């Protein structure tokens, strides 16, 4: 489903690469935790796997096809249609309503907003986001915001779900909701990769990679 082969990446002006000659395969239907101390390049690796960065050398294969060296438009389309993302602090648009945030990717995937809104409301119900959908992110709690971000990531039922510290500042109840959602999504046949510092979250994953 997703494979990184001999991946090397270094930031411009950095004396050493963030990681070098890194190879891993992420199979469908599993959850993988990327763990390790801060500064080891976990988030950078996640953004590389999500085709937001291009590796210095090596390749990332999506569905068996090389993807990391494709042009920007192709990688953007892959991100929209094959990937789902949960960011560290939810990264919601504070100026838009909850339902607008959940359905944001419909525009990028070229699907009808009304259909997306229908599914989005169902996801909000499923994850217990009990706020009026016309409310804005600034008016909900951090836990609710992360659940909304999870709904946005799951809207397209992505084949690959990448999560960057999705439970960073959450209470235990919300953390459990998020972890269960990631595991449930993997159970549908998706590949789920989570960057986490939490031993509990890492333990809940099928596999753990220490960087």
């Amino acid at each position, binding site marked *: 489903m997703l494979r990184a082969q001999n991946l090397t990446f270094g930031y411009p002006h950095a004396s050493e690469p963030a990681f070098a000659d890194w190879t891993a395969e992420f199979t469908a239907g599993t959850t993988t935790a990327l763990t390790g101390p801060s500064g080891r390049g976990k988030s950078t690796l996640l*953004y590389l796997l999500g085709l937001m960065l291009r590796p210095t050398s090596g390749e990332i294969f999506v569905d068996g096809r090389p993807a990391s060296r494709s042009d920007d438009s192709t990688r*953007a389309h892959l991100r929209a249609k094959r990937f789902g993302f949960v960011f560290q602090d939810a990264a919601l648009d504070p100026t838009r309503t909850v339902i*607008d945030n959940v359905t944001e990717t419909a525009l*990028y995937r070229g699907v009808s907003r009304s259909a997306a809104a229908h599914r989005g409301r169902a996801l909000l119900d499923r994850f217990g986001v009990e706020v009026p959908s016309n409310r804005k992110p600034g008016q909900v709690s951090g836990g609710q915001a992360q659940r909304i971000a999870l709904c946005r990531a799951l809207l397209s039922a992505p084949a690959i779900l990448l999560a960057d510290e999705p439970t960073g500042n959450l209470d235990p109840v919300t953390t459990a909701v998020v972890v269960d959602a990631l595991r449930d999504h993997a159970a549908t046949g998706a590949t789920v990769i989570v960057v986490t510092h939490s031993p509990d979250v890492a333990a809940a994953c099928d596999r753990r990679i220490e960087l």
Partner: protein
Amino acid sequence: MTVAGFRLQVIALTREAWATSIAQPVASGVTVLVVIGMILTVMLTSGRTIGAEQKVLASIDTAGTRTLQVRAEADAGLTADVLTRIAHIHGIEWAAAFSAPVDATNTVIPDGARVPARLAYGSHLERLGVPRGSPLPGAVAYASPAALDLLGLPDVAGSITTTTGSSYDVVGQILPPEFLSGFEPAVFVPQPHATGSEAVAALVVITEDPALVGPVSDAVLSVLAVDDPTKVTIQTSEELAQLRLLVQSQLASFSRGLVLVTLATTGVLVAVILFGLVMMRRRDFGRRRALGATRGLIVALLLTQTAVLTLTGVGVGMVASTIALIASGDPLPGPSFGAAISMLTLATTIGAALLPAVFASTREPIRELRVA
């Protein structure tokens, strides 16, 4: 992408642009205000000038800037078939020939006031006010209000008799155009079935453009085919046409300069506002890129947002400036000027938005989204 898919995407993009504009009321409001200010400035300065210019030009035009009149004495030999010959000359909008005037009186008041009656030749005499399908062609007459008054026919019912013994029923009132004011009080007897050999005393030609009066005048003179050219005189409005061109070019030059300065100022202001907006919302564009928005879509989104705000500003500005011009009693510049300014404003703001939009589209997700 199919046509239906493309349409769906355009609708979705426009909806998103509108929703984004609403979600950013300060930046959107300032952009709309800039556009309204620009429209008001242009409409109340250049628009007012253009309106005045059009009024001045219309005044000049009513004086007959496109008219040339050939006058021929009775024995000059000018005949009605000159109309056939000049039909091949380019730049002529309308032409008609008229016989020498013959005095006519109300048939029932033989000693009444005399008015000049003329036989009228030409295929488009409706410009004189004569109906296209005139009843009994050649046997009926049409008179101006001044002529009807003199003839004592206020109800446009009766007949006239000329000093040559011909009688015509007066069947209609006409309002002679400005360029035939010299024929007043006017009575015309349309002659749609003329043979061409009838003698005429006047040939009136209207050119398509004031600038064509000179060349058309030369061309008409060359095909008059008169027996005695010394008995023919021609009156043209070339001096008026030159005055018209002078007025038009001077006012147009002033207006153009003002519009360009205003447009440039608007473009700079919109670019600055959008750059500020993009800088404030770098994280927003980074997130959009991470979630799968292409660079092209980000650019299209910002340009559509700019277009939506501009059209809102143009609509409000146009209504406000029209009300202001009407309230101050100034002439309106006309819909074509308004449409041109609207299009120019749209092109300017979209052009100004291009650089900020490209800048927004290059935001790197990892740089904008990572939390330290």
